[in-house]
């Protein structure tokens, strides 16, 4: 009998602690599968952010280092410049990447550091319990925008991939989503392309993933697809922005 699907060997036996319907687990699965396909399980270095994925080291087989909130691109810069042979994924939440770490994100991209940033855009601060993120949609209720995010008080949500794409150095900038099987496959192809560009051409790439945080969106996991299509994707259009 042919094996058509199996759990990636780059994942450990420890099951994740993410909430039901959370996209972080899906993103990890994709990275694990890609690392096996590219045969880099023992080479890949996974730089974690501060957020719901901070304590993710037990879930996979990669070497990993943690950083202070928002600082992973600077930490990875120091690492990769001194150890250029290890492929590096910098995995960040939207708050980590596009609020507290905006400076580090933009400048690592501007320098074209030879690593791949995967930004999980779930439009909230997941780990701290659902406060407004730089990506929270106008009108969206969070614990710090109890009446819905207002333009007057908070301005507009940041489209981070577009910010990165206007820089010269990034080789490949894309926004993908994890809300349907088709989108998940497209996201996988994008992350794989970014990693290949890093390995073969020492290129910086940025992959924004539209993610679900059903817990803090206060919706059932079964409602994610509809919520994404109706609310999230219209503001954060999918597709390649560069490369």
């Amino acid at each position, binding site marked *: 009998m042919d094996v058509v699907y199996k759990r990636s060997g780059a994942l450990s036996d420890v099951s994740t602690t993410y909430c039901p319907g959370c996209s972080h687990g899906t993103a990890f699965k994709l990275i694990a599968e890609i690392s096996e396909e590219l045969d880099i399980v023992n080479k890949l*270095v996974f730089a974690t952010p501060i957020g719901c994925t901070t304590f993710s080291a037990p879930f996979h087989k990669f070497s990993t280092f943690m950083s202070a909130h928002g*600082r992973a691109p600077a930490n*990875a810069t*120091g690492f990769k*410049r*001194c150890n250029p042979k*290890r492929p590096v994924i910098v995995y960040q939440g939207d708050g980590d990447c596009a609020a507290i770490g905006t*400076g580090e994100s933009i*400048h690592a991209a501007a320098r074209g550091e030879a690593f791949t940033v995967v930004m999980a855009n779930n439009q909230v601060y997941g780990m701290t319990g659902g406060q407004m993120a730089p990506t929270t949609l106008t009108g969206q209720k969070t614990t710090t925008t109890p009446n819905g995010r207002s333009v007057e008080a908070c301005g507009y949500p940041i489209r981070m991939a577009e910010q990165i794409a206007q820089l010269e150095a990034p080789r490949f900038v894309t926004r993908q989503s994890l809300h349907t099987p088709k989108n998940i496959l497209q996201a996988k192809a994008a992350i794989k392309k970014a990693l290949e560009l890093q390995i073969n051409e020492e290129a910086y790439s940025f992959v924004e993933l539209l993610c679900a945080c059903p817990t803090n969106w206060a919706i059932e996991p079964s409602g994610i697809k509809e919520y994404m299509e109706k609310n999230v994707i219209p503001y954060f259009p999918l597709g390649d922005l560069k490369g």
Partner: protein
Amino acid sequence: MAKKEMWKGNEAMSEVALRAGCRFFSGYPITPQTPITEYLAWRLAEVDGVFIQAESELAAATMLLGASIAGARALTATAGPGLSLMTESLSCLASGRLPAVIVDVQRGGAATGNLQGAQSDYNMVTKTLGHGGLKGLVYGPSTVEELCDIIYDAWDKAEKYRTPVFILSDASLGQMMEPVDIKPFKQLDESRFDLPYVIGREESEKKVIQDTPYAGPYSTMSENLDYNYRKYNEMYEQWKEDEVLYEEYMMDDAEYVIIGWGMAARISKSAIRNLRKKGIKVGMIRPISLFPFPEKPLNALDAKKIKGILVVEMAIPALFYHDVKAQVDKNIPIKANLHCGGYLSQVDEIEEDILKMAGGK
């Protein structure tokens, strides 16, 4: 002995760092530190090292963590306002037990302050490296030569103890020219890439490098942190036995003692020489390691022999003074001679303070 050459403090320190094996520098320009950044910009390129002008001191200090995890001997340098931004990473380096060297070329004042020398960052690095109360080795040299000696061995110490090493220089020391022995190149061996905190060159078994020691013999994070930080503290206590550095100057027959560190101590030496000519028996104890603090020579000051202590410090409010006061016999009168904001300690004022003490006996 090698022939001495005339070098400015900032450049001498940078060259000696390179010869000590430093191959990574990240920094953000700030007076009076900038000559270090400019020097290493061209000099590291000559030895295939990595130089990064970072976007901020937040990023500059964070890059040290990554370089350290990659097995490089890493350096950053800054001054006051930049030090404030670096404290986040100082905390991570100390907690993650990652070796790296940080130089603060101190300038006057708080906030934006002033560009001349000062010693006002003393508490900020001797009491805790950033939040969390952890420590690193902290040195306060008073000559260019001593600055070079300390940085030459800084990574050996950093790696031995897996700790950040902090050097408090200042604007005067950074810019003054003095004869120094620019030391030979150290050879580093490849085994450093197998060190426990280093993620190896090509590929490796899984390594988990955390800036917080969550792992340990217990099942909860809080028990493990309690356990691990207790161990760190044992190391800090042991440093008091093994890593204390200080100088005693003209102490044999001293009746008055000046206690100071770095530039304030250096200026005080001129006052001591002048006072000796006037027949006043004055000497000095000069801490070189600021953490661990040289407690023993201060504890040993004998109230039957010593008639007065003058602490000379370039910080207002006083900082170092309180550490001295806590260690000396309460029966010895103690005074402080303080300046700050780039106003250096003054030889004539120091003499006057000691003469007043001596006159009032």
